[in-house]
Every structure is written in structure tokens, then in C-alpha cells.
């Protein structure tokens, strides 16, 4: 048997052995590369949800931490009792306050999403239509707010909407109103805050969809006698639909659970579930109740989250298919 492993022509078994060793070495690295991020996300993203679910089933207690254990062990480490408490969930159903909070959050988020779409669409369309450095400039103008503090941008609206703020001063100076309007600490301010904050999240996916729009299709529609409104409704909008869905989901989901915006801009009667969760946790110190609120919120949001996963996968598949067809060509 040849022992010269470096030789170009090694006999079959040795070569296979070298290959096997090589493969094994790759697999270790591969495993580590795959394992490290997976493990991190498992521990710090996935398992926490299980913990939240577990604690949502326990009872509030005056203790540190403030909940009663579900599993009770005696001194010999044998399980003596399991106390599962569905009371928190029952309470969520019974007390109209929570149901109202969920409904009001979904309503506020849905309506804001719609307004964001109406404001964002022309912006995305204009960017997609422009060329060269103008496009780069407009696109950077949309992206730039991503990089500035979200908290401070919400805060900026406090200065604008308050009693003697910019809006009221302007309206008074124009003589449109006699005395300042109450704008801050209203639902109106919350809508403004959400639309303002999440506008870039709407514009970017819309732009991505509109950018791919084939101009010749619109020309064809015009040649066939379609009026601008018709070709917009029948050609542009259907083709932009993936972008519309992605943008709406990206705005809707975080808006439902929003805390900062209703806390700074909303009134005491602005009911949003993110704020309810915050108060349960920080004011009432009712951790099990806060957990139950979070679990139900997750259930409400599962559908839109699945939607975005689905559309992003489809896009990835399309891209892969596209590359493949390029290769074939």
C-alpha cells in the first residue's frame, strides 16, 4: 500500500479515506457555522415564547419573581403537584376592557396602514418613475428616517401638535380657527404618529414592486385605448400587489403592538394593547396577566406574520428560479 498521501496517483482506498477525512473536517466547520446562530436564536428568541406561555398559565403571587410555580417539587425532587391556571385567559375574555383594547389596536393599526398606503403609493411611484441621481436622492430621503431615532421622531410631533405648537399657530395665524385645537393626547395624534413612523416601511416594498414594472405594459394599455386611471387600476395596481401586501403587513404588525406612540401622543383613553401589556407589567406587576396578553397578541398576529413569511419565500423562490433561467439561457 502506498503511504505517500501527497502523491497525485494514490490507490483507491487511501484516496477514499483522505476524502472521507476531508469531508468530516468540513462537516465540523459546517455544523459550527450553522449551529451558532441557530442556537442563539433558539435560546434568546424561541424559548422565551415558551417561557411566556408557561408563566401565562401560572398564578400571580406576592413573591420574587411575582408568580407561583406551576410544578411543585418536594424535597426528594419528586413532582407533587402541577398547578395550571387558565384564570388569566378567562379573565381576558370576561373583562370587556381587554377585548376593547385588542379591537381598538387592530382598528387603529388597520386604518393607519390604509392611510400609510395612500400617502406612500405616490411617493413610491414617483421614485420608481424617476431615473439616475434623482432616484437615488429620493430613495435616500425615504431611507434616512430609518437611521434617525424613532423615539425622537415621535417626540417631534409633541412639539407640533401641542396647544401652542406649530399646527395651531399656523391655523390661528391664517385665521382658520379662533382658539387652539386640542390635537395632542388624542386618537388623531396616534394615527399621525403611526403613519409618520411607518411610512418608510410602506414606501420601500412598494418601490421594489413598482420598479420592476415593465413600462411597455402601460404603453400597450395606452395604445389599446386605456385611460390613465384605467391602466393604473387594471395594470399598475395588480402588478404592484406583492409590494402592497408586504408594505401593509410591515406596517400593520408592529403598529398593533405599538407602545411608544400611544404613550407619548395618545390620551389616557387611547386604548392599545401594547400599552395595556406595559401597564400590566410595570404598574400592576402582574406578570402572568402580561404574559397572557402577549400570547393572545401573538395569536392575533400569527396570520399576518405567516403572510409575510409566505411572500418573502415566494420572492426568494422567484429569484432562485430567475437565476436558474439565466443560467439556462
Amino acid at each position, binding site marked *: 500500500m502506498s503511504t505517500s498521501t501527497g502523491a497525485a496517483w494514490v490507490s483507491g482506498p487511501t484516496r477514499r479515506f483522505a476524502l472521507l477525512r476531508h469531508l468530516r473536517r468540513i462537516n465540523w466547520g459546517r455544523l459550527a457555522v450553522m449551529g451558532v446562530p441557530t442556537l442563539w436564536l433558539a435560546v434568546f428568541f424561541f424559548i422565551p415564547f415558551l417561557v411566556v406561555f408557561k408563566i401565562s398559565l401560572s398564578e400571580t403571587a406576592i413573591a420574587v419573581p411575582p408568580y407561583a410555580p406551576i410544578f411543585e417539587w418536594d424535597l426528594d425532587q419528586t413532582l407533587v403537584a402541577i398547578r395550571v391556571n387558565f384564570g388569566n385567559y378567562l379573565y381576558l375574555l370576561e373583562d370587556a376592557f381587554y377585548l376593547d383594547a385588542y379591537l381598538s389596536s387592530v382598528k387603529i393599526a388597520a386604518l393607519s396602514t390604509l392611510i400609510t398606503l395612500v400617502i406612500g403609493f405616490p411617493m413610491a411611484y414617483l421614485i420608481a418613475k424617476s431615473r439616475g441621481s434623482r432616484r437615488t436622492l429620493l430613495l435616500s430621503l425615504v431611507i434616512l428616517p430609518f437611521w434617525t431615532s424613532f423615539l425622537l421622531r415621535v417626540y417631534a410631533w409633541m412639539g407640533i401638535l401641542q396647544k401652542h405648537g406649530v399646527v395651531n399657530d399656523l391655523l390661528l395665524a391664517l385665521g382658520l380657527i379662533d382658539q387652539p385645537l386640542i390635537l395632542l393626547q388624542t386618537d388623531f395624534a396616534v394615527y399621525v404618529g403611526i403613519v409618520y413612523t411607518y411610512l418608510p416601511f410602506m414606501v420601500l416594498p412598494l418601490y421594489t414592486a413598482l420598479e420592476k414594472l415593465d413600462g411597455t405594459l402601460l404603453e400597450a394599455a395606452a395604445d389599446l385605448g386605456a385611460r390613465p386611471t384605467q391602466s393604473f387600476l387594471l395594470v399598475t395596481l395588480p402588478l404592484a400587489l406583492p409590494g402592497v401586501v408586504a408594505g401593509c403587513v410591515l406596517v400593520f404588525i408592529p403598529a398593533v403592538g405599538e407602545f411608544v406612540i400611544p404613550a407619548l401622543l395618545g390620551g389616557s383613553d387611547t386604548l392599545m394593547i401594547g400599552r395595556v*401589556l406595559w401597564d400590566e407589567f410595570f404598574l400592576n406587576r402582574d406578570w402572568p396577566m402580561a404574559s397572557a396578553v402577549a400570547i393572545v397578541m401573538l395569536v392575533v398576529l400569527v396570520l399576518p406574520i405567516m403572510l*409575510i413569511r409566505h411572500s418573502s419565500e415566494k420572492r426568494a423562490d422567484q429569484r432562485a428560479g430567475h437565476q436558474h433561467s439565466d443560467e439556462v439561457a
Partner: protein
Amino acid sequence: MQRSSRFLTLTAGLGFLFLYAPILSLIIYSFNQSKLVTVWGGWSLQWYGELLHNDQIIDAALVSLKIAFISATLAVILGTLAGFVLTRMGRFRFKMILSGWTTAPLVMPEVITGLSLLLLFVALEGAFGWPAGRGTGTVIIAHTTFCLAYVAVIVQSRLVSLDETLEEAAMDLGAKPSSLFFLVTLPLIAPAIVSGWLLSFTLSLDDLVIASFVSGPGNSTLPMVIFSKVRLGVSPEVNALATLMILTVAIGVVIAVWQMRRQERVNRVV
């Protein structure tokens, strides 16, 4: 046709105005001399001066910068790995799960992420005695986790748009997986990694909700201090602080865009 294009420019223009008017008003009012935030009392830098002498804000800013620096760095390492695994390692058993775990944090409401991480830390402390109490360490872990997702998405989209032939050529020439990654792939995705780091840094610096849940007493981050100051009303010092932060970001972004375009031009020539 002409009329519809003018309509488009007008509506889109109003959209951009809506996006920037609040930021502009914030900047202008930060130079207002009057203590009554809304009454204009002439131009002045006095709030910037007071800001420099506010120890609470300075300390919180230092805590936040430290957390943001460490979290962004960890997030870039883990996020690049995740993005690489999802695009370059073919199909494997946990791929669907991993891809779900890297996209879900992007849209997860912050109150849920914050609460769930806090409960995890408390449970871990009860079971293993780690982490002992909460403070900057737990905030760093929390920020790394959600920033990781952003980095993964950025790196992933860069890798997908990247021409794979360079990597294939390196493989054909006998590069080991590790040298393939460090000598070929990494330089190619460097711009994505840089923007991932910067985005993570800003996201960490900005986070209020998650930090409020997982940080301990005496470890207030800058957004926590700002929030407690503005909760009851507008504060001229915060206006000054906001202006400084926004201008820093704006200058940074302009430099970054300029650098990137120059780099691209160089690449195109080469």
C-alpha cells in the same frame, strides 16, 4: 398625461414634506432661547450648553453607546453567519426554522420581545443562577438578538444578488471552505456587513421598550432617560439632544453614501 404627472409630483412632494417637517421643526426649536418651548424667543445655543452639564443624560448616553457598540458587533458576527447559512449552505433540516427565526424578530412587537426576554432571564437566573440580576449584559443580549435579524436580512440579500462564479472559481482552484469565506465571500459582502453594523448600532441606541424590560435599576439607557423626561411634555434640552443625534446620523449617512458610490465607481473601472 401631463396633468397626472403633476398630480403625482404634488402628492409625493407632500409625502416627503410630511416625512421631514417634524424633524425640521425639532431642529429649529432646539435653537429657541425661550424656556417656554413653543414661544419663539430668538436664536440661542443655551440648551446645548445645559445639555453638556446634564450628568444624567451624559451618563445614560455613555451606557447606550457601550451597549450599542458591543451589540452591533455581536449581531454582525451572528447575523452574517445566519445570512450565509441561509443562502450558501443548500438545503438542510432546520433551514425553514432558522429562516423563520431570523425574519420574525423584524416584525415582532417590541413589548412581546421585551417581556419574553425578561421572563427568560428571570427563569434562567432561577434555574442556573445566570444571568445574576439584570443590567447592561442582559440589554446587550436582547439587542444582539433583534439586530442579528436585520444583519441577516441585509447580508442575505447581498449574497443572493452576488455573482456566485467568483466563489465557484475559488473552490475550483482548491480553496478551503474557511479561506473561501474569509478571502472571497467576506470582502464581497463587506458593504452589507458595514451597513448591518451601522443599522444595528442605531437600532440599539434607539431602543426604549426592550431595554426598559430587560435592564436593571441604575442602568438607564439614553432612550429611557429621554422617555421619562418627555413623557409629561416637551423639553428644550431634549430638542438640543435630538438635533445633535439627527445631525450626526445625517452627516454619517451622507459620508457613507458618498464613500459607497466612490467605491462602486472604482470597482466598475477595475
